[in-house]
């Protein structure tokens, strides 16, 4: 391949390029011209951009290039990667135990022996591992995979170049599943590794899906996970992510969403894990009358860093977007929220609102919030807000005056703060699981 235009500055930057060069012939879909070209184009984009750093506006608060000095070797799924006991243990988690079509990914690879693929197919869904889907990509897949504008993001480009695992899922017109689909990432206990997964999820007109992704475990990883979503007219997706990666991990999660007309997208992300995490959601309204409701909470302590960056593009009239994010930051943790709303010319009657709130539990914790509105239409309602504060001493006193010990009273107030966002999740069982996960972070009982 041609030499990179850019002079790479860190070992990790160079390592990703080298990894691609070495792995290219054996990457899934290598025999397919379209896939090979897609990967080539992506690695060229990466070679131009390098890893994002603080002088790239969208990465202002998260200097990945300086944080990521070394790249871990890429994991290639081994069939013995996860023991029965580990799997059984993982299912005791409240979220994992919820009734769902479970798709278990070990080191990113869809494990048919641990997944309910037959059930999902019987329910009418089309489901493939990414690897299988790339052998001979279906025409509909080619219209989605790597076609979002955000493909120019260095992290997404790197994902496209190196994607080895993930799932491809499609619901045909009018289909609805009786249960959510839960992508459970389990990675066993190996050496630190890099895992690159790509999911493509399409719900056609009038179809609806609940899609959950959970990332948990004790293995230190550098994960780059992208989920591309297309929602057809009058279709709907409720999308949840639980990120509880091992301490010391890097989690880069990107959701790229396109909505048709009168479609609905609801999303919630809970982040408590990883040393450094970046959650990107780029959503574009491409049909009129659609709505989006994206919310989440991050609970971080020690020196954890968690960045949530949203880009909502109102390209057409009469769409509604709502975002609510809550950050709880202790010790020297740092939370970042960037929310950008772009209203295209002609996207009249756009209604977009976002809110980011942080609760700082320590003097050294930091929250950076950057809302951006780019509005090119005149008949719109857009707003944003951001607050940052400490626990209200008057509320704390009220609870304590009722006999609730201070530690419990604080936990109750923190849970209430986070709960305002969790309440937006419609699925009761998942709402409970999210509440339990925040309680676990706080070290208090949850019932």
């Amino acid at each position, binding site marked *: 391949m041609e030499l990179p235009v850019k002079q790479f500055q860190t070992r990790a930057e160079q390592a990703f390029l080298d990894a691609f060069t070495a792995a290219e012939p054996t990457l899934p879909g290598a025999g397919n011209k379209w896939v090979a070209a897609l990967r080539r184009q992506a690695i060229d984009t990466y070679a131009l951009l390098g890893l994002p750093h603080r002088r790239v506006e969208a990465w202002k608060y998260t200097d990945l290039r300086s944080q990521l000095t070394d790249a871990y070797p890429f994991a290639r799924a081994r069939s013995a990667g996860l023991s029965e006991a580990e799997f059984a243990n993982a299912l005791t988690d409240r979220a994992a135990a919820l009734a769902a079509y479970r798709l278990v990914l070990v080191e990113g690879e869809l494990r048919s022996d641990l997944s309910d693929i037959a059930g999902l197919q019987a329910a009418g869904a089309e489901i493939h591992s990414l690897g299988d889907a790339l052998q001979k990509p279906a025409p509909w897949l080619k219209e989605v995979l790597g076609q979002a504008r955000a493909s120019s993001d260095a992290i997404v480009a790197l994902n496209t170049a190196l994607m080895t695992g993930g799932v491809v899922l499609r619901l045909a017109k009018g289909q609805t599943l009786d249960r959510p689909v839960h992508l459970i990432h389990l990675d066993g206990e190996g050496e630190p590794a890099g895992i690159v997964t790509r999911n493509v999820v399409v719900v056609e007109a009038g179809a609806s899906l609940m899609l959950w992704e959970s990332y948990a475990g004790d293995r230190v990883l550098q994960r780059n996970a992208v989920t591309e979503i297309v929602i057809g007219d009058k279709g709907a997706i409720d999308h949840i992510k639980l990120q509880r990666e091992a301490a010391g991990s890097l989690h880069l999660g990107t959701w790229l969403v396109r909505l048709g007309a009168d479609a609905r997208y609801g999303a919630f992300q809970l982040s408590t894990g990883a040393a450094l995490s970046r959650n990107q959601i780029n959503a574009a309204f491409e049909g009129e009358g659609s709505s989006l409701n994206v919310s989440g909470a991050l609970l971080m302590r020690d020196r954890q860093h968690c960045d949530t960056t949203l880009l909502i593009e109102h390209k057409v009239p009469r769409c509604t977007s709502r975002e609510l994010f809550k950050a709880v930051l202790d010790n020297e943790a740092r939370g970042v929220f960037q929310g950008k709303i772009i209203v295209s010319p002609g996207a009249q009657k756009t209604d977009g609102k976002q809110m980011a709130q942080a609760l700082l539990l320590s003097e050294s914790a930091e929250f950076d919030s950057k809302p951006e509105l780019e509005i090119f239409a005149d008949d719109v309602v857009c707003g944003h807000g951001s607050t940052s504060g400490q626990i209200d001493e008057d509320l704390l006193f009220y609870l304590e005056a009722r006999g609730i010990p201070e530690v419990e009273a604080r936990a*109750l107030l923190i*849970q209430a703060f986070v709960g305002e966002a969790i309440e937006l999740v419609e699925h009761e069982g998942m709402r409970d699981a999210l509440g339990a996960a925040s309680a676990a972070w706080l070290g208090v009982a949850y019932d």
Partner: protein
Amino acid sequence: MLKINNLHVNVDGREILKGLDLTLPAGEVHAIMGPNGSGKSTLAYVLAGKGGYEVTAGSVTWKDQDLLAMGPSARAVAGVFLAFQYPMEIPGVATMTFLRTAVNAVRKARGQAELSTPDFLRLVREKAKGLKIDPAMLKRPLNMGFSGGEKKRNEILQMALLEPSLCVLDETDSGLDIDAVRIVAEGVNALRSKERSMLVITHYQRLLDYIVPDRVHVLSDGRVARSGGPELALELEQSGYAEFGGEAA
């Protein structure tokens, strides 16, 4: 018995209570009246243990325990209950969750068994009924969207559930119409007992028509200026607080 001896309290460096003495025997109801700024609410907060109130001299004992040495939750466990003048609104905490957490925290600390969910629900329903509290209200976040009357009834509900031995009611009648005052007062009267002492803080005599006190103390400039029987409240209704350095009642 509650014994307050020569209590001096500063708030933001300014002395508000200036040598307050008060004795409240078990089973009695005493009213604290006085003009605005005389230190009534400060007394209530100091008894409950709110931060920001600096005790510079004096002592407060409840059943021979040094209240001032205890944190707010320990005081609640010891039997102190403050019905707030302005109950806090806490979004995200369901009223029922709050009530159960409080009841079980207090029970646990008192060495009693925690209540099971069905037992707790039964207890709340029974107490709520007496206070004409709509069960739907208890599903809402704590005090959010409650009317003034609902908030005060919710305070009395908490009082009934936590079974305190020393109740401090801080202007529980403020902002209530006469019907709401009556409901709240009935709730309070139902809790009167030989073991339970109450300190009813009020600016107006009106509440004392319904909760008839054993004694009335008039606070003025951070001290008890005068004490007497229930007739003292009626007298103040006529004469106002002028002689105590306040405007007419």
